[in-house]
């Protein structure tokens, strides 16, 4: 039985029409169910193997540059055993030369003694076996357990080249509130809940560590009676211990001026230990000259008090904020986030009334806390890549819906019929079956046979799906147009459908083959893989839908027959093309083979 007869058999039999309808419906439900059941995982953008990545080292707030250097050197010593490393650089007390990731992560503002950045350059990715993200995944626990242990409160974070636009961190939780102390306590709970969540790594709180400091309070009465001035005291202290440039000299030999820098020499400047007594001893030797020419030791005119250093205040949009950041270790950010949120709620519940903020906005995972005793309010807001992903998916979803509407309107203008436009739209939408199942198959292949990493449904898959709609619309259009012109030329409806499907099968298959082959190389790309897979499997599904389901829909649509004109369209009445109420259709089958 040839293809034309097969189609003819389907469109003339109610039973077979219904069967095709149910198969399509079954596939659709099966495919869509894969998303909420996490059989197919969603992520914004997949990882990309790069030839370089950075490691950010942050030691405790009051660390010396030597301590930071020691931690960085420790990282280097682990890295040195890696054969894939071509060279590595450490930038102490500053950020590495800026890259796109550093741009949003504030690398340019690094200037403190407790900050360092390490750049790891790998040999070319075509000549090495391991991808950069697998290497980071393998080395991260090794380096963190070895080097973070050197000094308390050190944090080592791995920063990979983002495959798309960079974000501050993959998971960011901003805790807003008025009371800085309360924020500090909550941030500890948030950090703890991140640590308990599987898949989250590089957890860091963006705030200063609380440390003690010695404060020198000038005793104004004594200063005045010793014929000194207050700024003289502070100037000398700064000059002695920190040093400063007092003059500059121009040079004929080189660019820039040559500064003249004055400070105490290293031996007399350094204290033996960080205690109040040692500082007092030092200050008793540092003397000031008063207006009478008498040398007055600094210690005589000041008092030394031990205090707690004021931590840096961070604010976002004029509200006090503490950020807790984390990265995802090879997993999508969507799923650990949900787990972390539940753990967080459990931890905070005993002290706060926790309200889950829901709603259609992209802030739908936020939590509002109210202290049970003081009634203080704190807001926990998710930010970072999560927010960007949600926004992007929302916008792409919007783009998808507008694409549907635009296409529908275009079809209505063209056909002047809602039913036919509906057929085109339904045909387009059904390609989603292929997109999702395609991701499922690829995920299995990747996970078990190729890389061992999940293949995610990403933003690019969604773009693929959107462009697929246009492609499958074309097949439906060709079919409907040809069928219409056949009916106009006097061929009975069901036969016309069968002929047109059989005739148009070749170009439809050819264009599908062209798209599948054209997307094969696209599918091998880490970022646009999703797009490639969506196009390949989506066009397979849309071809199947065009060749088997669209004829069924056409058979049910009345609008396909010419509205005016002498040709009688012999067929049964069709209802809404999607609901298969076949009982009302009274098919009048004409078996006469029309002339071609």
């Amino acid at each position, binding site marked *: 039985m040839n293809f034309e007869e097969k189609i003819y058999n389907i469109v003339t039999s109610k039973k077979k029409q219904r069967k095709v309808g149910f198969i399509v419906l079954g596939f659709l439900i099966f495919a869509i169910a894969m998303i909420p059941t996490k059989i197919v995982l969603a992520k914004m953008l997949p990882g990309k193997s790069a030839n370089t990545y950075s490691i950010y080292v942050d030691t405790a707030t009051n660390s010396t540059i030597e301590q930071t250097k020691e931690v960085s050197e420790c990282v280097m010593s682990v890295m040195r055993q890696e054969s894939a490393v071509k060279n590595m650089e450490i930038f*102490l007390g500053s950020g590495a030369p800026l890259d796109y990731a550093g741009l949003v992560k504030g690398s340019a503002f690094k200037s403190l003694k407790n900050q360092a950045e390490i750049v790891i350059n790998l040999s070319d990715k075509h000549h090495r076996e391991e991808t950069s993200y697998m290497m980071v995944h393998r080395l991260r626990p090794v380096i963190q357990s070895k080097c973070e242990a050197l000094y308390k409160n050190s944090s080592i974070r791995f920063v990979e080249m983002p495959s798309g*636009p960079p974000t501050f961190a993959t998971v960011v939780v901003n805790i807003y509130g008025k009371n800085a102390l309360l924020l500090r306590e909550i941030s500890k709970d948030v950090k703890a809940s991140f640590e308990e969540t599987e898949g989250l790594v590089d957890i860091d709180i963006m705030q200063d560590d609380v440390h003690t400091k010695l404060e020198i309070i000038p005793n104004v009465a004594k200063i005045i009676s010793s014929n000194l001035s207050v700024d003289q005291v502070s100037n000398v202290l700064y000059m002695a211990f920190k040093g400063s440039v007092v003059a500059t000299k121009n040079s004929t030999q080189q660019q820039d001026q040559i500064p003249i820098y004055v*400070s105490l020499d290293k031996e007399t400047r350094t204290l033996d230990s960080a205690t109040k007594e040692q500082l007092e001893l030092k200050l008793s030797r540092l003397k000031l*000259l008063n207006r009478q020419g008498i040398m007055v030791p600094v210690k005589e005119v000041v008092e030394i008090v031990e205090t707690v250093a004021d931590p840096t*205040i961070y604010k976002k949009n004029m509200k006090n904020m503490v950020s807790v950041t984390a990265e995802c270790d090879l997993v999508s950010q969507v799923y650990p986030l949900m787990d972390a949120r539940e753990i967080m709620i459990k931890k905070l519940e005993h002290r706060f009334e926790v309200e889950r903020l829901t709603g259609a906005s992209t802030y739908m995972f936020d939590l509002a806390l109210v202290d049970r005793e003081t009634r203080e309010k704190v807001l926990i807001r998710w930010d970072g890549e999560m927010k*960007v992903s949600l926004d992007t998916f929302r916008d792409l979803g919007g783009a998808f819906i507008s694409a549907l509407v635009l296409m529908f309107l275009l079809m209505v203008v063209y056909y002047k019929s809602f039913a036919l436009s509906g057929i085109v739209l339904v045909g387009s939408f059904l390609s989603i079956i292929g997109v999702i199942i395609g991701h499922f198959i690829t995920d299995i292949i990747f996970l078990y046979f190729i890389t061992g990493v999940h293949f995610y449904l990403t933003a690019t898959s969604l773009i693929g799906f*959107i462009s697929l709609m246009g492609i499958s619309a074309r097949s439906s259009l060709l079919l409907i147009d040809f069928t219409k012109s056949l009916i106009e030329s006097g061929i009975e409806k069901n036969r016309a459908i069968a002929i047109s499907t059989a005739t148009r099968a070749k170009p439809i298959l050819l264009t599908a083959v062209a798209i599948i082959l054209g997307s094969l190389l696209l599918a091998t790309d880490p970022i646009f893989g999703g797009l490639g897979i969506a196009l390949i499997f989506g066009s397979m599904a849309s071809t199947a839908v065009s060749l088997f389901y669209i004829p069924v829909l056409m058979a049910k649509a009345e609008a396909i027959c010419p509205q005016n004109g002498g040709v009688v369209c012999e067929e049964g009445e069709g209802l809404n093309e999607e609901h298969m109420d076949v009982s009302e259709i009274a098919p009048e089958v004409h078996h006469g083979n029309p002339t071609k």
Partner: protein
Amino acid sequence: MKKESDLKIKNIAGYLSKGFLNNPLTAILAFAILSLGYISLEVMPREEDPQIAVSGGSIIVPMPGASPDEINNAILKPLERRISEIKGIKDIYSTAMHNVGMLNIQYKIGEDRESSNLKLYDKVMQNMDSIPGGSMMPIVKPFDIDIDVPIVTVAFYKKEELGIDHIKLYKQIKDIQQDINAIENISKTTLKGAKKPQFNVLLDLDKLSAYRISIGQVVKAIQAIAKNAPEIDVPTKENKLIVFGVKNAINSIGDLQNLIVAKYMGSLIYLKDLAHVEYYYDIQNYQEALISYKADGSPLSGTQDQVTLSVSKLKGTNAVHLAESVLETLEEYDEALEKNGLGYIITRNYGERANEAVNELVHHLVLTIAIISLILIPFLGWRESLVVTIAVPMILAATLFIAYMTDQTINRITLFAFLLSLGLIVDDAIIVIENIHRRMHLKETADHSFDRIIIEATDEIGPSTNIATIAIMLTMIPMAFVGGMMGQFMLPIPLNVPVALGVSLFVAYVFAPYLAKKLIKRTKGTH
């Protein structure tokens, strides 16, 4: 179907194919499009990722001696209020540290950078009168991806110890920096880890108290001789001009060492009695850059000092060419560096990376076109397949040229847009050729001229192809309105795919029939 002898054209497709079918200019036009596309591919600026228009900046207000809380109250709070008056700001991040307050302003993605920067300056300048006492002049630093993200970084290190000191090293690298900055379209070069020459006066606390001298006295003495006085011209009695200048008293390290600070118990005290005076580098700068590298075959070396020179480019210029000229300039210094025992490693080369990414994708494009045309041979015949194979590069060439004219760059996303559109743009040509092929073999057309078959075949599929192509274009357009970073990142797709589709229609109606006439052998109807 159409039995009438006179040709009836119903659609634009038919008119186009009729107009160009026997036109001698068609071949010239085709050649022109292909060459324009090739030229565009060569001259268009290449980059790895598309530019994302991120605007923003930071305002830094130093206030020596203030605690974070004081900074927050005196500087940040009023400043935040003023800045939030600006339209188009997305987020304001503020940080209050000891001695300094900082505001990082992020504009919404896609805001015009120049005007955003101006607005920021403007706001700060307008409120200069209400700046709190004790704070220093606010510094406004807008950030600029083009200028701030270097395309090439070079690490200079000591390969072998030939006794070059920090001062000579600095001079050498500064010379190179000057030369590289002189290359056209290079915008900013910076040094990281550089140790700047400096006179260090390191006072000994014990000696100071022994000679009964305070630090203030030492400072005054140094400042007194370091002053540069302007030259003085005085007329003499004979009305002649005499010019004399007070020479800067510090010419060498010796001058500084022998500076007389005070007189104590009748003898003069020189600076060298009180302090260790040296001509060395800026020891107070704790920022360091270190490197560990592989020298031919040997394992990674131990960490050693390095100086990194980073080079940025001006906006819209070709990273590939610039990176090449930077490397050429460096090579001129090879000998001089070798003599001093210095080596260098290119630690970043975005030019090369962009070039590789672009070349790889162009390679993929060519490969894909080849695969598609091969697969068409068994279905359509090799002549028909050849028509499609010629049509596709023409569509891509025209699209590329339009992209060049609209100031786009070639980047990964542009090329992905091309790869994505490849599957779509072959369709129009395939459908036209398939219909010509089909109609040619129909019985009804046996006595028609080949020209007529071609025009009729093109005309027949015209309406549905038009509407289908417009439908695909429509599905792509909403993507241009996706907001945020991701929207900007993906922007080349909605920009180029609809253009490619439009061009593909034109090519399918104009060149596909023309090529079909030239390449396809007429066979009489057999069906």
